[in-house]
Every structure is written in structure tokens, then in C-alpha cells.
């Protein structure tokens, strides 16, 4: 006897109806690479999966004006090979490229990554760094929530039961912005992130830093921009000493938000160095400008 049943939705409205059909505890299947393992380990977590991976509009990646929208069922392979994302959010391409290996990236989706909200989810720090907004549908209305508010803590979002994460969108960063995603894992492929740092920033015509965004992954319970570290940089000329100071502040913020843990001894110097490295990467113009 199967632990759950399977049904495939052909369009968004059908998926929403199925997710809210009385008599079932339904969950969206948006790839299955995490869900199938969760259901194996926690039988009874839901009694029906609604496959949304073959809904064409949930794969769409579009740019309207300065807003880029990514359908929740876009796979990591689709995202990292998409010209719109490549031009506007190089750090998201870098983040998606570090997910698992080809087999995982071909199936796993950005919506699944966000809704599952694993502590080590690679797309989350990149999306938060982009100030991305999630659009969530329930049968009667649609909500728009910043990803940083949607994901409360590891494995917990504010998506209501029966809700469907439809898309993620972000405003194209200001001209001249550069971004970088730095990941520390045990090896390049198939490695769960031990630590990630996502940065985005730009300088004015005088070379002064006018904007910086810094987000860490696998470091704090709640993934958010680290305002104190960002403030260290703005208004100054880029320098190695400044990057190191920002790295120090990121480490301090990480410890303040997460407390001292067994891993802090390792993560503290790592996050400092990774932050400084990532900042050097964007402010020494190693990375392409967004277009």
C-alpha cells in the first residue's frame, strides 16, 4: 500500500485546487529531490503529492522593465543557463551551479529550494542578496513576501497550508553593480554547504562604495542581509583593510545571531576570509557588471 498518492497538475489553478481539495493533506512536488527523501523518512507527513513540475508557466523566466521573475518550478539547470539571469544576477548563476551535481540540478527547482528552506539551501542567500520577493498563491488571493521574511528559520516558511509558491522576482541591480557567491563545502560537487557568502555592490564614478549587500548562508538561523557589515563599507574607497574589517563584522553578526557553537571555531575565521575574498572579487572588478 502506498504511503501517499500522486497527482499531476497541468496548470496553476488546477494545482491550487488540488492542494486545497478537502479530504487530502496535499503538498506540492516541485522536483522531488528533497521531498522524496522527506516522505521516506517521515511517512504520513502528507497523503498526496501534487506534481507541479510540468506546468509550463512555472518554468518561465521573464524580464519586464527592471523586474526579473523566475517561475518556482524552474530547475537549477534552467536558471544557470538562462541569459536573463546570467546578465542580471551572476551570483544566482554561481549559487545554482554549486547545487548538487548535474542529476540534481536537472530536477531540483528554485521554488523547492526556497519552500523546503534547508539551512544549507544554496539559492537562499543569493535570493536574499537580490532582495527577491516571493509570490505565494492561495485560492482567494496572492501574497508578495520578501524571501527574507518568507523563510523564518531552517525548514520553516510562512507559506500557509494549501499555498503555492508561484514565482520569485527581483529588481535588476543598479547599473555598474557586481556580485559574487562564495561557497565552502567539502568538495566541489555534491557537497552540502558548510558556509556561503553572497555579496553585491557598486562604486560611484569616484570609486567610492555606494551600495553593498552581504548575506551569509549556513551561518545564521534566519537568512538576512547583514546591515552592520554593509555599513562598514558604504562611503569608503575599497581596500583590503576595509574588506577585512567587513569580514570581522560579518563574523561578529554571525556569532551574535547564532551564538557560539562547536563549529564557531571553524566558521569564524572562514566567514571572515570568505567575505573579504568575495568583496575583493566584486570591488577589484573581477566579476562582470550586471546588464
Amino acid at each position, binding site marked *: 500500500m*502506498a504511503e501517499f498518492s*500522486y497527482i499531476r497538475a497541468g496548470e496553476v489553478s488546477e494545482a491550487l485546487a488540488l492542494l486545497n481539495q478537502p479530504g487530502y493533506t496535499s503538498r506540492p512536488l516541485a522536483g*522531488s529531490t528533497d521531498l*522524496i527523501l522527506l516522505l521516506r523518512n517521515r511517512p504520513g507527513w502528507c497523503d498526496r503529492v501534487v506534481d507541479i513540475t510540468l506546468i509550463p508557466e512555472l518554468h518561465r523566466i521573464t524580464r519586464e522593465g527592471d523586474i526579473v521573475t523566475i517561475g518556482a518550478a524552474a530547475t537549477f539547470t534552467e536558471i544557470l543557463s538562462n541569459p536573463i539571469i546570467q546578465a542580471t544576477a551572476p551570483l544566482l548563476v554561481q549559487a545554482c551551479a554549486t547545487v548538487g*551535481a*548535474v*542529476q540534481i540540478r536537472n530536477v531540483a527547482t528554485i521554488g523547492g529550494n526556497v519552500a523546503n528552506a534547508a539551512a544549507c539551501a544554496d539559492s537562499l542567500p543569493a535570493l536574499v542578496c537580490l532582495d527577491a520577493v516571493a509570490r505565494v498563491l492561495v485560492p482567494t488571493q496572492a501574497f508578495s513576501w520578501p524571501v527574507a521574511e518568507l523563510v523564518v528559520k531552517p525548514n520553516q516558511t510562512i507559506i500557509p497550508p494549501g499555498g503555492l509558491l508561484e514565482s520569485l522576482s527581483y529588481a535588476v541591480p543598479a547599473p555598474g553593480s557586481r556580485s559574487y557567491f562564495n561557497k565552502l563545502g567539502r568538495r566541489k560537487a555534491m557537497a552540502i554547504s558548510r558556509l556561503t557568502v553572497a555579496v553585491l555592490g557598486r562604486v560611484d564614478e569616484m570609486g567610492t562604495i555606494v551600495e553593498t549587500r552581504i548575506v551569509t548562508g549556513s551561518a545564521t538561523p534566519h537568512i538576512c542581509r547583514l546591515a552592520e557589515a554593509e555599513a562598514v563599507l558604504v562611503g569608503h574607497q575599497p581596500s583590503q583593510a576595509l574588506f577585512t574589517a567587513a569580514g570581522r563584522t560579518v563574523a561578529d553578526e554571525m556569532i551574535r545571531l547564532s551564538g557560539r557553537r562547536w563549529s564557531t571555531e571553524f566558521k569564524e575565521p572562514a566567514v571572515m576570509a570568505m567575505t573579504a575574498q568575495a568583496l575583493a572579487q566584486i570591488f577589484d572588478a573581477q566579476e562582470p557588471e550586471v546588464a
Partner: protein
Amino acid sequence: MKIEFTLNGCPIHFEAPADTSLLVALRDYLDMTGTKEGCGVGECGACSVLLDGKLVNSCLILAAQAHGRKVVTIEGIRGSDGEPNDLQQAFIDYGAVQCGFCIPGMVLAGEALLAHNPHPSRLEIRGAIAGNLCRCTGYMQIVDAIEATARRRGETRHA
């Protein structure tokens, strides 16, 4: 539930519980035992198959997700004469096969790579098989075999 898909070019159908993975369906319901179960959690790539031409871990996919789609397993990879194809022959020629358990997945990963990137660098080949673990650690010969096949296919195309 009733599941239908095209397996190695042939339409098939079978009844299986909805929570059956594609891997279990292939091995236990369809007797396609070339697809191996290594880890069962998507870490090793031994269960790799092509779903609509894309490399996937069949242990992390429900058989139901393949309904109405095209699945290619290692049994579907062969030369026109039924013998090993050029990539499989290269695995033999370059000594890429030791215990053999990872090889079905490795061959499919190689085919998936060459289908969209006919001239991969060695680094790209290594990236393409990064999700396939070889317990015997014979990676160099596997990379050699894929590289040689890419070269020969390129020569054939330009001949």
C-alpha cells in the same frame, strides 16, 4: 496506479504503488537491472537514467513523474548492431571499468554531456561526472574514455 512511459524507445505500462521510485520501478517491475542502486539518496549517481534526455537520479524521482515521458536506461545505449556503442567500447579500451557498479551511470552521464557539449574540456567532463561516484576510483580512465569518444565523434562528423 497505472504508469506508462517510453522505455528505451518502447512504450511500456505497469501497475505500481504511487510512492514507487523510478529506480525500483525499473529494477523490480520492469527487470531493467542495469540501473544500479548505490546510496538510494542521490549522492552516488549509480542509478542515473535519462528522463526526456536529461540525466537524473532515478532514486530521487517517483515512477509516476515519468508517466507519459521518455526514459533511457543503460539497456537503451548500444550500437546499431546491438554491440556496445563507441562510448561503451572506449570504456573497455581505456580500462575504465573495474568493479563495474558505477559504469551504467557513468556511461549515461557521458552520453548526457556529449549530447549538448560535443567538445568538452577535461574539466567539463569532470564536472559532468561529478555526481557519479566510482568506489574503485578509476576516474582518470573514465575521463579518458569520454574525451576519446568526443574526439572520435568529432572526427566522424567532419569526415
